[in-house]
């Protein structure tokens, strides 16, 4: 008997009412997939294709209009408190609290998980050091550069040792050099922690670099193309995958 999926989407649809009272905006339509424990999945799609809606459905910030979302056997919306400490999220922008220092921001999840202060500060400091922010623990976010702030938000997500890590285009707001440097460190961290990870991106290269499995969404979010990536894939095999993704993204065809 196979292990139950870590994340299950079953014919999920999500529509948002329009402010002008018109027909609801359909962000996700009949989306079904499963993600196994420890998988590293990259979700790729153009802006506005519903990637972030799917992301919010997984982390329980949105409730599906139809179908069901199950994460670790639980409904992420209904069993809200059950997921405390189990999900780590890295957002597109750093979303640091400006009134908290770097170390206090990293320790937020641990604090909400009722970990004693000395312990949580020790863990937060070790994560900051691991991400090259030693000496910046007591700086406020305003005093940090964009790259440093995003490192703090990465440390915040990893500090709670989550079972599931959700990343919503975490490097898109950074310059190319900083983004590349962080991406490398990030992949290493993902390997070390072994958390089930979902990485949302609109960059083909980023998806190929970070994902072990790749899903391409087309609007309204449904899977147009899906493939598994192997570490020993040749460059020509990768080029084939790139070509197929480009085709799907340009709307030429849907392949699955």
């Amino acid at each position: 008997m196979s292990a139950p999926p870590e994340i299950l989407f079953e014919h999920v649809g999500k529509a948002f009412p329009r402010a002008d009272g018109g027909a609801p905006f359909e962000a996700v339509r009949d989306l079904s997939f499963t993600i196994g424990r420890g998988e590293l999945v990259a979700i790729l799609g153009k802006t506005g294709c519903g990637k972030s809606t799917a992301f919010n459905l997984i982390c329980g910030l949105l409730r599906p209009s139809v179908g069901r979302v199950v994460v670790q056997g639980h409904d992420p919306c209904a069993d809200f408190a059950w997921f405390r400490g189990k999900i780590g999220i890295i957002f597109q922008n750093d979303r640091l609290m400006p009134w908290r220092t770097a170390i206090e921001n990293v320790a937020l999840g641990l604090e909400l998980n009722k970990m004693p202060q000395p312990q949580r500060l020790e863990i937060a400091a070790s994560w900051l050091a691991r991400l090259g922010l030693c000496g910046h623990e007591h700086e406020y976010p305003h005093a940090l550069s964009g790259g440093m702030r995003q490192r703090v938000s990465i440390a915040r997500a990893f500090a709670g040792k989550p079972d599931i890590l959700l990343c919503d285009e975490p490097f898109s707001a950074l310059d190319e050099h900083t983004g590349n440097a962080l991406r490398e460190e990030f992949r290493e961290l993902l390997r070390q922690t072994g958390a089930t990870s979902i990485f949302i991106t609109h960059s083909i290269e980023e998806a190929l670099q970070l994902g072990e499995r790749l899903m391409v969404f087309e609007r309204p979010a449904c899977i147009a193309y899906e493939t598994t990536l192997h570490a020993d894939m040749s460059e020509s095999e990768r080029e084939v995958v790139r070509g197929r993704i480009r085709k799907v993204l340009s709307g030429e065809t849907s392949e699955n």
Partner: protein
Amino acid sequence: MTLGEGAASTRRTGRSFGKFHYEGIVALAGLALVWQIASLFVPHFLFPSVPEIAERLFAIFTSWQSISDALATSARILAGLAGAFLLGTILAMPMARSATFERYAYPLLNFNQGIPALSWVVIAIIWFRGIEFRIFFIMVMTTLPAFTFQVLDAYRAMSKDLFEMTLAFRPTRLDLFRTLIWPTVLPGILTAWKVNLGNAARVVVVAELVGATGGVGYELLQQQQIFDMAGALAWTLVLVIFVLVVQSFITLIETRALRYRAFAEHA
């Protein structure tokens, strides 16, 4: 107010973190000098000299009866503000969360804003017997709309991104309030206290003038009846000093609680 506007306002007022500026004292000294010069040319009962006013002020601070009057007024201001703040917060929270409730509450608060403080004084005198409750009622009714609107605005200014981020950690309601809502609304609340403090000081005097047997307003009425300008100014200064002291205290809290903004200015 944005960060940039805040910095500009700091430059304009001459207030800064950890630095003392003399401009305020120089301006007040200049006003006293102009008054003193005027007192040399204008009848004494209209413009008493600065030393005479200072003498009356000293007399107030050395008489237990006068001090208790000043303290009574201060306590009334603080109690009224605390009541209005509490009630305003209780009203603002459901207004922020329910558009329907807001549609009912907003016009009522707007209507209240149009009622003059003196009308509330008359209403309070007719409705209630106890002097202290009358004044408390007047203070609450006159400062309630401003507190409600300011707390509501502060709550609405909360970042949706930060709210979602915090929610993703599955906080309890209390933790959500402690870690996100309170730090978000605190700057607005401190501003509301500073703004309403001045308003409350004006209203309390009117309330005491008509409906009290003690306090600064009552003392001002006594000075008016004996046509004592020096006494009236001295009692006015007592109230001004109280407002300045409380405002300094709020600024101190602001400097401490919002110190991350000072760091932001440096950055």
